[in-house]
């Protein structure tokens, strides 16, 4: 690399370029298929909201050099608890219960990782299974409908000035997440912990607290995603979030965050998540069969990951 290019990591911008390219491609190819209509574009933004919210949490976890596999189960259990509470009580209490569930699970994951010094992969793999079981058992596999319309509008299908509430949630979580991750001392400590935990500890950073905190953040965003799903569907179900883990991981990594820690970007994860949503949307609108959609999506993600993670010095 020439010295002029030092300090600029080209891999950080691949996702932006890739996003624009695919957007342009769909815009041309699907010109007459409604891709570019404002309804469809807002749909993509709405549909990706829960994944984006979880991706923001996962960026913190990856940056700290950890992983959280339990987010999908947290989605289901938080949504179910909120929906169940809402049968009897007002929705604000249900929101507190849902988010509180997430925070509690995050504390459990975090304590086991930070203080019992167990690998986050194994801890969250275990809690993922445990919580999935609890979610099934809790409601006997039944859906729990939500009839409190204020909740449904606030977390799901509502709109303000023509903009869906899910878009507001996305913007808020991405904005706050970006600020904390990039602009605060805590964010710097998350980076240092994931980059070189020994060095971080030697310099006086309390890496246990950092590890605990990132897992709490991740579980809390997953709980919020659960509320968003519940608001959107006007109900909760044990299968919510079941398939989201891999989408979240793909969005985060395609967005330029490294699985090994030390490097991450919240805005990249947003683009990554929108890219995943746009792929789903565009490939359906192309009229491809389900198998064709899966193959094309896999190839595009592979290409994006290869470009993002290729290390120029290796």
């Amino acid at each position, binding site marked *: 690399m020439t010295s002029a290019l030092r300090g600029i990591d080209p891999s950080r911008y691949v996702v932006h370029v890739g996003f624009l390219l695919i957007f342009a491609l769909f815009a041309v190819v699907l010109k007459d298929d409604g891709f570019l209509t404002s309804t469809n574009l807002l749909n993509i933004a709405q*549909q990706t909201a829960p994944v984006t919210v979880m991706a923001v949490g996962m960026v913190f976890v990856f940056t700290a050099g950890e992983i959280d596999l339990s987010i999908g189960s947290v989605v289901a259990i938080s949504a179910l608890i909120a929906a169940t509470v809402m049968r009897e009580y007002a929705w604000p209490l249900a929101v507190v219960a849902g988010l509180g569930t997430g925070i509690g699970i995050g504390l459990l994951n975090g304590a086991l990782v930070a203080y019992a010094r167990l690998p986050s992969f194994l801890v969250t793999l275990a809690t993922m299974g445990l919580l999935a079981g609890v979610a099934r058992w809790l409601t006997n596999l039944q859906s729990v409908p939500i009839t409190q319309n204020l909740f449904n509008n606030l977390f799901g299908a509502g709109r303000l000035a023509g903009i869906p509430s899910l878009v507001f949630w996305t913007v808020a979580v991405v904005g706050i997440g970006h600020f904390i991750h990039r602009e605060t001392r805590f964010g710097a400590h998350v980076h240092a912990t994931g980059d070189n935990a020994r060095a971080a500890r030697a310099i006086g950073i309390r890496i246990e607290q950092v590890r605990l905190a990132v897992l709490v953040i991740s579980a809390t965003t997953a709980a919020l995603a659960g509320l968003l799903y519940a608001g959107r569907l006007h109900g909760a179900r044990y299968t919510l979030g079941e398939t989201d883990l891999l989408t979240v991981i793909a969005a985060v990594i395609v967005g330029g965050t490294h699985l090994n820690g030390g490097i991450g970007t919240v805005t990249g994860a947003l683009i990554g998540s929108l890219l995943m949503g746009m792929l789903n949307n565009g490939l359906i609108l192309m009229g491809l*069969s389900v198998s064709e959609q899966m193959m094309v999506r896999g190839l595009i993600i592979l290409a994006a990951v290869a470009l993002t993670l290729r290390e120029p010095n290796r």
Partner: protein
Amino acid sequence: MQRRSLGPLALAALLAASGSSQAAPKPTSGPHGEAATPAAQLTLTPEQEAAVRAGGFTAALVWHTSSDYTTAVNAGAMDELQRLGIEVVAQTDAGFDAAKQMSDVETVMAKQPSLILSLPVDPETAPEAYAPAQAAGTTLVFVDNSPKGYVQGKDYVTVVSDDLAQMGAKAGQAMAQAIGGKGKIGYVFHDADFYVTNQRDHAFRQTILGEYPDITIAVEQGLADPARAEDIANALVTKHPDLDGIYATWAEPAELVLAALRNAGNTHTKIVTLDLSETLALDMVQGGNVAAIVADEAYAIGVGVARAGALGLLGQTVEPFYVVDALAVTSDTVRDGWNRSLHRDPPASLLEQ
């Protein structure tokens, strides 16, 4: 199994049907208790077909997952839609995720289809999922289940399903035939609140109890978690080596029961199950433990929803609930069975035997 969504009334149906344990199997009824009409009665007159062709209609197929079953339903729908001159503009697979299915409906609406054929993942939350289509006046036809609170004839055309009770009953008859009308059998049922399997299992049990007094169900084994099917199968075969037959609630656990019997060197216990599987059929044509596999006419379901959709587009009203026939496939009828159920020839391995 895992091929269809939970039925909201399954428990109620189960309770209602189990009022008398000696009763004959209850005929299949719709998810809301609708009387069943044979799907073969769904036909279009030549004038109606011409009107559909002239209409320039489009359709989107919004499925719940991908499987042999959906592939066959999808093929039936695609073929029939093509025959009727209705263009398929989008196909989706929700992977059993109610939220994904909602997104899929939103997405396909960008193509403004005149018709959506779909199997709702979760009837409870489905009203929200199909709301954009309903708002746009899109004609809806469902497989198996309809969204909670939707009114047939107003919100959707009809529901087309397989005849679950008939499948269970045919499995019972096939079992009786396989073991010569008398003996001891094991009954491996799906121990979860699952509309499809519950009705089939129940009908099997009622058929044996009601029609075959010389057959006793010596052991009833619930299967709550498919992942544990192998342990259950092994334990069952080890504890009860003398069973004449074992009923397994669907093909996957049946494959594990078969593996357990083979491990134990057991060649006399017969297996009867539901849903076509190449592994099981191969054992059957080779004269192994598998005696019969009961299947539904999945392809015909696809044809049925397509026709119902076409009639709906013309403003015709139809019956609220249609069913297709079930068939018991044995070693002699493999080719016919595959064609009737899935509308294709069986895998080559089965024809070489």
